[in-house]
């Protein structure tokens, strides 16, 4: 927290990442001539800001589009519509060459450290690859930088010549983190960085990410389906359902009093390691499955499973209602008490 305030002093208080109405549709082609018959609307018009030094948690169930958001923001996909501004640069629609010069400031940590590290490259070469691509360093400088990065993530220098298969999952993820840090990025998308790790290793990696954030004033988009871990690491949390953000709020507010029926169901479904409170916990059990993003329901996306569904929900897509203090909810339940907003707020954690 101290560092977030510190970061806000150094840099002007404006968002480092600014997403407006981002859409990512994957076309469906069918038939003999592969005609375009529809789209999978993986991300369907989402907007949010992330302040410098902040961690925004992005949660949702599999298939809700949270990873697609992370990948679109870094332009790993060519986005369908909307704007992505990182550190003042619009990157959603720029050409490859100017995008390439912006790559160093935005990096990614992937879910599966086994699949995201080249098995034929040594640790030194994996961490050094971004340096080779984007910087001109002498061999000595390069090695010194690799050792520095290995120190940051807690890898012993003797590992530099080893290959990824020689490491455990937690260590492999440290290699992935070191590679992401190589070019001094400002913004890192962490896409389920701990999902593939064992419980006792998860805490090690999360603590490492927190330490690095403080030390280097990093800004994170932390994508995860693990709500308890998001509660631990994120300053603000956005909840996604079927391509849209249904609720965004500060960590305290969201976990203390979720407002959207989906957030309520999601939080109530998380079991807790306490037999007594588990016996009394009454989870809101949602009926049915998530609809296909190729054919989302009319009106509110959640209307097919919502326990509080009203007639209007099946007809009209809900607007975004602003509750102040950076909390926004997309639900008709609040249409009478609240005013609609078009502009996402950055949240109060930075003020």
């Amino acid at each position, binding site marked *: 927290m101290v560092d977030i305030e510190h970061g806000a002093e150094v840099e002007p208080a404006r968002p480092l990442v600014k997403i407006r109405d981002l859409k990512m549709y994957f076309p469906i082609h069918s038939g003999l001539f592969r005609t375009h018959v529809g789209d999978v609307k993986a991300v369907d018009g989402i907007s949010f800001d992330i302040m410098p030094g902040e961690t925004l948690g992005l949660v949702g*169930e*599999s298939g809700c589009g949270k990873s697609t958001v992370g990948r679109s923001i870094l332009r790993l996909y060519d986005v369908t519509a909307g704007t992505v501004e990182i550190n003042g640069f619009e990157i959603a629609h720029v050409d490859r060459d100017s995008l390439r010069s912006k790559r160093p400031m935005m990096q990614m940590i992937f879910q599966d450290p086994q699949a995201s590290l080249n098995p034929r490259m040594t640790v030194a070469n994996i961490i050094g690859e971004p340096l080779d691509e984007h910087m001109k360093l002498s061999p000595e400088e390069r090695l010194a930088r690799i050792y520095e990065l290995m120190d940051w993530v807690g890898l012993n220098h003797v590992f530099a010549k080893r290959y990824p298969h020689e490491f*455990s999952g*937690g*260590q492999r993820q440290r290699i992935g983190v070191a590679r992401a840090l190589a070019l001094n990025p400002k913004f890192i998308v962490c896409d389920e960085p701990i999902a593939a790790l*064992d*419980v*006792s*290793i*998860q*805490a*090690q990696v*999360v*603590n490492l990410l927190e330490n690095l954030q403080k030390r280097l004033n990093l800004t994170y988009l932390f994508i995860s*389906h693990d*709500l*308890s*871990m998001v*509660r*631990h690491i994120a300053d603000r949390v956005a909840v996604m359902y079927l391509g849209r953000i249904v609720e965004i709020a500060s960590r305290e507010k969201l*976990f203390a009093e979720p407002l959207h029926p989906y957030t309520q*169901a*999601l*939080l*109530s*479904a*998380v*079991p*807790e*390691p*306490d*037999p*007594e*409170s*588990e*016996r009394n*916990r009454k*989870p809101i*059990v*949602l009926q049915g*499955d998530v609809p296909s993003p190729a054919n989302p329901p009319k009106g509110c996306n959640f209307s097919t499973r919502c326990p509080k569904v009203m007639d209007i929900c099946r007809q009209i897509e809900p607007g975004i209602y602003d509750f102040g203090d950076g909390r926004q909810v997309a639900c008709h339940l609040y249409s009478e008490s609240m005013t609609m907003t078009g502009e996402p707020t950055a949240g109060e954690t930075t003020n």
Partner: protein
Amino acid sequence: MPDTAMPILDVQGLRTVFRTRGGEVHAVNSVDFHLHPGELLGVVGESGSGKSVTMMSLLRLLPSPPAEMRDGKVMFDGQDLLKISPEQLRKVRGSKIGFIFQDPMTSLNPVYTIGFQLAEPLRAHLGMSKPQARARSIELLQLVGIPDPERRLKDYPHQFSGGMRQRVMIAIALACDPQVLIADEPTTALDVTIQAQIIELVKELRRKLGMAIIWITHDLGVIAGIADRVMVMYAGQVVEEGPVNEIFKDPQHPYTQALLKTVPAVRGPRAERLQVIEGQPPIMYEAPVACSFRNRCQYAFAKCAMENPALVPVSAPGHRAACFLLDKVAMPEPEAANG
């Protein structure tokens, strides 16, 4: 559950070794446990702790080679499952003991309809005719909450969602009214809202059918909600076992204590910093001669490196843990135990 009741499943000194090119890996090291009728036993451990291998060994489901069952007794229904003939064993598998695997997509056969796969155990074990098996299949799908079961019998696994597939797996496992159901991480591949559905379903089925269940998981939250008794595994050994309240309220083994602290809470107070268990679980190239957790244990002392602690009873009935800290004679300083 009183310990005096006759257990339905009694496992003693089970040892399973994998012979690999890199040498032998001792996956299960003298595991003892029992299961009472109607009880839900939660088995907790990280990947590689031997929890799945233990359960697969019970039914001799592991391919041999590389797996080799070195030792042990698995008493079920008055016979030792490790000794009986393959024909006799086949009568137990899928009939008296049902098995649910982690990933429903890879454990269902993609080229057969759900109806065929449901009828298979019914016809094989219970000798049902086709119409009988069909009627029972519809009943089973209804039981696990699959809408429109008659029509869904004709569908293939890929036409079901993940949660629905797991329901089908449960229906298949329940087909022959098993006395014991072994569920190996049945909700790990599912989303939380779907997981909640499956857990509610299993609770309801337990009330209706009353079978004993072994539920393997790494998620302490899931176990807290459904288990009667919990067994914690580390490096192929049981390090602690006891009633669910005891394990969560008064864990005795340093590993269980650390494991409970390392998971952040989704409700209640939030910790500023996560507790960490340093290091990583060992790979057991040899049968353990010392405590396997000692290199990660903050309380480790000289004796931990010399001997392998056995499970000893602690205060509450049925609660046992394998740690020298509980051995009042061996403990170096009394302060070390509280911390």
